[in-house]
Structures are given as structure tokens and as C-alpha cells.
């Protein structure tokens, strides 16, 4: 019974997304276009022949990793932090607090409901584009399996960061600045354009201990370049950040929800 209500929330959110198929399709198409542009840039960079591979990674592998990272990153729109901050500012949070549900869990269920249709469609379109551009790669079942686990954890991590940012609205009302910073961090350090696997060693060490590379990138790296040791390293970092951010967002919510009174709801 407890889970059913959140599954229902996810389900109604997914149904809302599917109501406007054109929006859904265009989100996927934009990702596919981005991948095409990035692929052209990489092909131009590598076509000079000076560099054939970086750290044993071919251009095709890089493009595949960036493709999947970009595709998984489709879940960043609509932004959870923005949705929560609007709930707080407009007082829409009142209805959630009136019901026998947890507001953070409601948002989590809503996030998965919103993300699932665009994730499926976006990934499908992106994979088709990447395949047409650079051909396929050797995909192992275990890579897909572990990659899926890392993807679920990565998206959960993204949700927790966005939730924490959104909950800051109880204090600041406008969280767009925090959101902007977070967005730039996951674009630069999260493998959206340049995979951390080809970063200089010292920078790679730092980046791989921050959460940004583990939102969407670590799943794509495991799928394209499966390595058990790397997979376990990514998993440990993800689990650590998920635990830490769960605690942070829990305390932010407990403190923040009392401030509904001060904001007038």
C-alpha cells in the first residue's frame, strides 16, 4: 500500500508527459542534434591523424560515451529544483502537505514518472544517431546490467542534488543561481562534452570523487567500456553520495517545511 501510492504518482506523471507527444519527441530530437554536433567536433579533432586514441579510447568510443551521457541527461528537463521552488513560492506545496504522503517521496516518484518516457525516447533517438555516425560497439550483457544499476543510482543522485537545491527555496525563494551553478558543473565535469576518462590523471582523480561524473556519465562508461574494477569504484562513490545527500535533503526538508509559516504558504 505504501509503495502503491508512489507508483500511482509516477504513473500519472508519465501519463501527463505522454499527453504532449510533440514535446516529448522534440526533447529527444534536440539531444540527437547535440550528439550530431559533438560528433562532428570530435571527428574534426581526430581526423588530423595526430592523435588516434586517448588512453586507449577511440573517437568512436568517446562519441558513444558522450551520446549515452547526453541521452541520460535528458532527465534534467524539467528541472526538479525549479519545480520544487515554484511549489514553495506559489504555495502549491500546501496540497502535498495536506495528504498522507511524504513530499520528498512524492517528488521522487514524480521525477521517475516524468523521466521514464523521455529517457526511453531520447536514448532510442540518440543511439540511432550515434550508430549512423560511428557505427556500433561491442555491447556485453553484464555491461548493460551494471550500467543500468549505475544509471538508476546516478539519476537518484541527480534527483537528490536537485531536491536539495529546490528545498533551498524555503530560505531564498529563488534558486535559479544554485541551479545554474549545478548545471555548469555537470556539463563540464559530468562527461556531457568530454568524458572524464580522457581527463589528465590528477583532474580525473578529483572529478571521479565528486558526484557530477556519476550522474549520467559513469553508467555510459560502464556500458561502452566495461571494466569490473572501474564499475565497483563508480558504484562505491555513487552509493556514498546518495547516502550523504539523502541525509542532507532530509534535514533541509525538516527545517524548511517549518518555514512555510513564515512565507505565508
Amino acid at each position: 500500500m505504501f509503495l502503491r501510492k508512489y507508483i500511482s504518482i509516477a504513473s500519472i506523471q508519465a501519463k501527463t508527459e505522454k499527453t504532449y507527444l510533440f514535446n516529448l519527441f522534440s526533447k529527444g530530437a534536440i539531444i540527437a542534434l547535440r550528439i550530431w554536433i559533438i560528433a562532428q567536433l570530435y571527428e574534426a579533432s581526430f581526423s588530423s591523424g595526430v592523435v588516434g586514441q586517448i588512453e586507449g579510447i577511440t573517437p568512436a568510443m568517446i562519441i558513444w560515451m558522450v551520446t549515452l551521457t547526453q541521452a541520460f541527461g535528458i532527465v534534467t528537463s524539467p528541472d526538479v529544483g525549479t519545480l520544487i521552488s515554484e511549489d514553495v513560492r506559489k504555495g502549491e506545496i500546501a496540497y502535498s502537505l495536506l495528504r498522507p504522503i511524504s513530499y520528498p517521496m512524492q517528488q521522487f516518484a514524480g521525477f521517475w514518472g516524468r523521466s521514464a518516457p523521455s529517457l526511453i525516447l531520447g536514448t532510442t533517438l540518440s543511439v540511432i544517431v550515434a550508430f549512423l555516425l560511428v557505427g556500433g560497439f561491442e555491447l556485453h550483457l553484464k555491461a548493460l546490467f551494471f550500467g543500468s544499476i549505475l544509471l538508476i543510482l546516478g539519476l537518484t543522485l541527480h534527483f537528490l542534488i536537485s531536491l536539495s537545491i529546490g528545498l533551498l527555496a524555503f530560505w531564498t525563494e529563488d534558486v535559479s543561481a544554485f541551479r545554474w551553478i549545478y548545471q555548469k558543473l555537470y556539463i563540464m565535469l559530468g562527461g556531457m562534452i568530454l568524458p572524464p576518462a580522457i581527463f589528465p590523471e590528477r583532474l580525473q582523480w578529483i572529478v571521479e570523487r565528486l558526484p557530477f561524473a556519476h550522474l549520467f556519465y559513469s553508467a555510459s562508461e560502464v556500458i561502452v567500456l566495461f571494466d569490473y574494477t572501474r564499475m565497483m569504484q563508480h558504484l562505491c562513490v555513487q552509493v556514498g553520495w546518495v547516502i550523504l545527500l539523502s541525509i542532507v535533503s532530509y534535514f533541509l526538508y525538516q527545517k524548511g517545511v517549518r518555514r512555510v509559516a513564515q512565507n505565508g504558504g
Partner: protein
Amino acid sequence: MTGILFRSSGEVSVLGLDPEKQRIELAFQIGAVFGQKAQLWFHLPALDSYKLFSEMYELDTESYKKRLNFLVEAFEIGKYLKTPVRKLSLGERMRCEIVASLLHGPKVVFLDEPTIGLDVVAKQQIREVIRHINETEKVTIFLTSHDAGDIEALAKRTIVINHGRIVYDGSTALFGREYLKTKTIELVLEESTERFKYPEGKVIESGKFNLKIEVENNGRAIEKLLSYATSNFKLSDINISEPELEEVIAGIYKEKRN
């Protein structure tokens, strides 16, 4: 009282429960509609939202269907149950919102400005709906409204709050009487009103053949005015009226401010 806001001081108990500490438990027994906010999913039919709420409130399928059929018939929303909420008029949407708040059979319902933005006909329909749920379902309704018409039409008990303090708490019927200081008497004469001079009343409106005079709200003052009018003039019509409840409330707030 709903557990949404946290109190700065004092105690609150709703149905024997503390809204702050027992929010989830209380949630099963209360419902709410906020006039300026929507709880139904905007792009989907109300039926989809109702299904979701039935899960949230842990209603089994049979109870939910029975309850929904009853409410749909009572509030006559059958014909737009499957229409996306964004396509409904404000009045239709409000009826669907009220049904959503009643789906789980709450004992207390909070209606916050449910008639805001509605035209006269829609307001009337919503008032009938509210009266219906109070009388047939025995649901206690907390109605907040800036429309005195809602209060006059529906509330047995009225509480007027000014800057967080209760300035009146009692019967709606007696409310006007307690704060009514004047009565308005309209006189329609068969001759010109030029000669009409009555210093013990205040002329608030004057035409060629008619006058509206405000006098103190006591039988003696009214009798005196009527006696003067009937003795000195030929009258074709008399109307005695009280100030609107809205004016009474506005008077209270002005008085407290001064």
C-alpha cells in the same frame, strides 16, 4: 489546523489530533480546497486524479468506485469526468475540486475562498454543493471567504479575525444585529422632497421624489422618522433595510484600525 503551517504559540487540536505531530494521521480525516490553487492534474481528466487520490488515501477499489459514483451523481459532474481539467470552466473545475476533497470521506473539510473568481450563477451552484455536503454527509465545513454572501448563505457560525485576533465568534444571524448601528429607510413621496427636513436622521441619498435616510437602529428612532414623514407628506412607498453584511464587516475593521 491542517498541519500545513506551524503554530508560533498555543495549542491546536483537530478531531483530537495534533496537526503538527500527527499530520499523516489527520490527513486521512480532513480535506481541503484552496480557491486559488489546483489539486487536479491540469492536463488530464479529473477521473485520473481521483484514481490517484484513492491510492493516496488507501481506498480499496470497491469503496472508491461506490464513493465516486455517489459524489459524481450528487455534484452532477458525470459529463466532464473524462474531460481534461484545463478545458473545464472555473465553476466546473471547482465542483470537481470539491469532489476530490471528499473522496476519502473526511470528517472536516477546509474550503479556502472556493467561490473566488466565479460568476453569480457558478457561486450559487457551489454554495448549494457546500450546503449539500454539510447537510447530507454531516461534514464540518471551515469556510474562509471574503465574499460576505458566502457567509450569509452558508455559515451558521461566523468568526471574524482581524490581525490574528478574533473580534467576533458567534451566530451569523446575530452577527449583524450586534454590530448594526443604523437602519436605512427609503421614502418615496408623492411630492417634491424639497420641504423634507429631518435633522435627527442622515440623508444618504436624495432624489426629486425619493430619499434614503439613515437612523439609529432602534424602534424609537424609526417610529419618529415615520411619524414625521406620514404627518407631513403623502407617501407612495416605504422600504426599511439593513446595511449589507459586507458593510458591517468593513465597519468592524475600520473601527479596529481607528
